[in-house]
Structure formats: C-alpha cells, structure tokens
C-alpha cells in the first residue's frame, strides 16, 4: 500500500512554570492508505499531542520544535496557515474524546456538520444540507431528518459522538484521527461507537489513527500498533506480530497489567511506579525506573529506536535480534 503519512523525529514541547515539558520528544512512524494505526499509551505519554501537532492544533504554550510530517508529499509542519487549514477537516479530520464539550452548544447540529463542507467549498449550501442529513443517517441517528436541526444538548452522549463522527467524515477525509473516541461513554455505547467506526472505515476507505489507552482495544482494532511512553515511541509494530511477540518491557507490562475479562484471580502483574515527569525525565531509558529488567546501561544510555524485524521497531537495550533478552 502507498504511504499516506510519514512522521520523522517529531518534537513538541510545552512551556510551563516549572520548565519545558517535552511532551513529544522525537517520534517517527508512517501510515499507509487505508491503514489503521493505534497509538497506545497512558495519560501524559504524548499520544494526543503527537497527532494534534500534525494539524498544528496544540495549545498556545506548546510548539513543534523539530521534525517533519509528510502527508501526501507535503510537510504539514511547514505549510502556511492557510494551507494547513485547507487540510484540516478535509483531508485529515479528528473525532475528539469528549463529545459533550467538543460540539458548540448553541449551534444546530446540522450546521456544525455542514461547516467543514462549506468551509472547504466542497459543495453548495443546498447540497451541504442534504449531505448533513445523509451523514446523520449514515452514523445511525434515528429520525435523522428532524434531528439534524436540533441542538447538541438534545442529544445523548453516544449520539453526540456519532455527530462528531459525522462531522469528521463530512468531506470524505483521507485520514481520520480518533482521539479516545469511546473513553467518555458507557460500556454498551462504547461498543456501538466502535462498530460504527469500523463500518465507516470500510465505507469511506479512510486511514484511521486511533488513540487509546486500552491496549486490548488497540490490539483488536488496529493494523499497526504504536506504544508510546513518556513522549517517545517504545514499540511500533504490525499488530499481528505484536500480539505474538511484544518486545518492549513496557508493552509487556501493559498487557500483563490489563485486566482481561477472563483473568484469573491473583494473576495480575502490574508495572510498578508512576509515569515520569516530562520536565525532567529520567536519564537513559525513560522506562528504566519502572522496568523490572533494568540494567546499568538502561540508566545511562538512551536506547536506540530501531527496526528489529520487518516493520517492527523497538527502543530497548535488551532487545537483540528480534528477541527480548533479560
């Protein structure tokens, strides 16, 4: 498959009272047309920032320090303001985590769906209207014809997330970024939204970046998985391979600390300790204070992010020749 996006050495830092937060500190990956990439990590690992940086939507105190992001041959980070705007919502769109706050409370839902269409001059006003109705139907809103002119507060949480998805799909984007799209939802609704995402991916043939902290979900859903820890990529791998052979101790830890519905009592082996401060991250490997296998080299030297097998990248001193040697 052809390459849609390639990110090289992306660094995004935030200025804070107590220093510079290196939220994303040199990450590189690629994404093909039609591929689903899941970025997995805990809060503060930089997974959201890494994608918001692409569209230059990070907060005012943040800045992209270095790197490039080649999207269909253009470097997103070097585009002019107007050029990047042309891409937002049209070629790349985002589904945000919290559907409650991500919709304008005083604007009718239909209007909010129409906006990207109108802004990108994809079609006329009249057509955009019909398109909004059609999109609502597609994302499974009952009585979509009337509800299109309702306000967001008249929708339930799941419905709102469906609206968000409709907005994201409005211009037939090439890439949809779904930033924890189900975290704020109830269990049963969560499943509905995941199903919807799968369907839409099929229907629209888009690439998807799914950001989630739920490694189980990522492993089920994605083609490629990318595990982030403290602003860096720990492991990046096609998902099949990852399921068979997760290499990074953090990936292993995440899997073993995830409670599966079938898990046996007392079988849980959590990762000890807490995620590090990103203002003064630990020396060497950032994971070493929590790594049960940590050795001297891990404390002193930052591991190289290297390809250990075909398409399987890991940043760990202990991985050698595609195997984890503790």
């Amino acid at each position: 498959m052809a390459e849609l996006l390639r990110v090289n050495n992306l660094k995004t830092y935030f200025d804070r009272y107590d220093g510079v937060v290196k939220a994303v500190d040199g990450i590189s990956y690629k994404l093909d047309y039609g591929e689903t990439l899941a970025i997995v990590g805990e809060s503060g690992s930089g997974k959201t920032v890494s994608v918001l940086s692409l569209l230059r939507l990070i907060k005012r105190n943040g800045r992209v320090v270095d790197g490039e992001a080649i999207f269909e041959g253009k470097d997103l980070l070097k585009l002019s303001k107007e050029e990047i705007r042309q891409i937002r919502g049209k070629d790349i769109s985002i589904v945000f985590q919290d559907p409650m706050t991500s919709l304008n409370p005083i604007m009718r839902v239909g209007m909010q769906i129409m906006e990207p269409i109108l802004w990108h001059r994809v079609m006329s006003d009249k057509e955009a209207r019909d398109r909004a109705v059609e999109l609502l139907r597609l994302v499974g809103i009952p009585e979509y014809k009337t509800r299109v002119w309702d306000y967001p507060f008249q929708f339930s949480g799941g419905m709102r997330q469906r609206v968000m998805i409709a907005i994201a799909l409005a211009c037939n984007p090439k890439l949809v970024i779904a930033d924890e799209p189900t975290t704020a939802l109830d269990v049963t609704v969560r499943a509905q939204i995941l199903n919807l995402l799968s369907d839409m991916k099929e229907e629209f043939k888009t690439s998807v970046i799914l950001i989630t902290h739920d490694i189980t979900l990522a492993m089920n859903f994605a083609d490629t998985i990318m595990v982030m820890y403290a602003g860096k990529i720990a492991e990046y791998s096609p998902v099949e391979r990852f399921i068979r052979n997760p290499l990074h101790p953090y990936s292993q830890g995440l899997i073993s600390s995830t409670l599966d519905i079938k898990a046996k009592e007392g079988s849980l082996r959590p990762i000890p300790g807490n995620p590090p401060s990103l203002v003064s991250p630990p020396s060497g490997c950032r994971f070493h204070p929590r790594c049960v296998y940590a050795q001297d080299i891990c404390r002193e030297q930052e591991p190289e992010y290297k390809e250990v097998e075909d398409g399987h990248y890991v940043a760990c001193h202990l991985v050698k020749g595609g195997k984890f040697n503790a």
Partner: protein
Amino acid sequence: MEVALKQRRRGTSYWAAAWRRFKKNKMAVAGLIYIIIIIIISIFTPWIAPYPYDEPHYAHTFEKPSARFWWGTDDLGRDMFSRNLYAMRNALLIGFGSQIVVLIIGVIIGSIAGFRGGRIDTILMRITDIMYAFPTFLFNVILVTVMGRGLFTILVAVGLTGWAGMARLVRGMVMYLKNAEFVEAARALGAKEGYIIRKYILPNMLGPIIVSLAFGIPNGIWIESGLALIGMGVRPPMPSWGNMIGAGVAYIMAFPHMVIFPVLTFALTLLAFTYVGDGLRDALNPRSEV
C-alpha cells in the same frame, strides 16, 4: 530527581501553588507591591505626612507644587501631599473595613442558607435577591443619611449594601462543598458537623472569598468617592479622594494640581487593586469563568 524529592518533602500547599501562579502575572505583582507600599505608608501616615491634614496655611493658599509643599496646597493652604496620604489611608480603611462587614454578613447568611437549605435557604436567598435589586447607590445614600457621615458609618454602609454577592458566593460554595467527595469522605469517617465545617469547608472556601474581597475593596473605595462627589462622603476636614477630587474639579482651570494628584493616586490605587484581584482570581481559581 533530587530537586523533585526535596520539593516533595516540604510539600507545596494550595497556597504555595497559588502564589506561584500569582507571581507569573506581572501586573498583579506590581499592583501587590504598590498596595503593600501604600499600606505601610498608611500605617505610618501620621509620621510620614509633613503636615497634619487639616493644618491651614492662610498665606499659602493654592500654591503650586514646591519644595515646601510637594504637591502644592489647596484652597485653605493645606498641604496636598499630606492630605493625599490621609485620603489614601481613609480609602484603605473604607475598602478593607467595608469588606470586613461584607465578609461577616455574607458568610453568616450564605453559610446558614447553604447548610440549612430548604425553607430557611429560600427565605434568606429571597432577602439576598432583594438586596441585590436594591439600587445600591441610593441605598448607600440613604444609609449614610441615617447613620451619619463618619468614616466608620460609611464603611458600614458600603458593607451593608454589598454583602449580597458574598452571601450568594458563600452559599454556592457551601452547597457545593457540603456535597463534595472529600466532605462526604469526612462524613463517612464519622466526623462531626462542626469538625467538617472547621477543617473541611471553611479552608476550602477561602480562595473564592479572598478573590471576591479583593474586588470588593476597590469597589468600596469607588463607592465612597461617588458618595463624596454628591457631598455624602467622609466628613471634612477629614480628606478622602472623593471630596478632594470633587473640590479640585472646581479649581481645574486655575489650579490643576488640586485635581491631578488626587485623581492620579486614586486611579492608580484602584488599578492596583483591580490587577491584584485579577491575579488572585487566576491564581486561586484557575478555572474561573469571569
């Protein structure tokens, strides 16, 4: 790592964190420094002021600023600089004093309403609503008429008209806090009501209350000056900015120094308080809306 550990050991309290945020706001810090300076000056005014505020120099009326009278003299030959110092002191007294009144009434009414709820809450809040709708300025004028024009009575009057906002704030805080999880936790631990109020609710209400007070102080000063402009302010010869400005405006053509100095100090002080209020609001209540 070491640094972080050390910090841990001491612990940064809510207040330390707030102070850190406050420090970032340069205007607020400048305002605070200004306010601290004028408070110190106000404490020592009788020793700092070159002349008593009411000492006339009949041979030196309307004098322009000079080495002897730094900011000139007024229609009675009284030293404008000294009068400004005393006016500042009075303004601070009224500003702070009125907020003490506001605090007492507001906290009592607000917390009773918040804690008791139900009927008492409804009644108290109705009263507060009425107070809110009372035309403040006119009510102040009436109160001053009733109670007289002393420094103390004016600050009481300003306080009496200004407590409704505080009561609402306190009530809101109490309503929120009494259902807050950590208060619920305390209740689950078997803490008595008194203990909860003392250790859990009151300390946590402090932030918003301080912000409200910080904005109330310049407001009190402002109200006094408004009263003074229609002859309802502090009784002369006691100087206040309001009556100095009011008197000075009459002389603006011939003796502009009589109005420029009071207006400048007055505006500067109010600006300082407002900036400090802004700073405190952002520092103590990071997610505030206004």
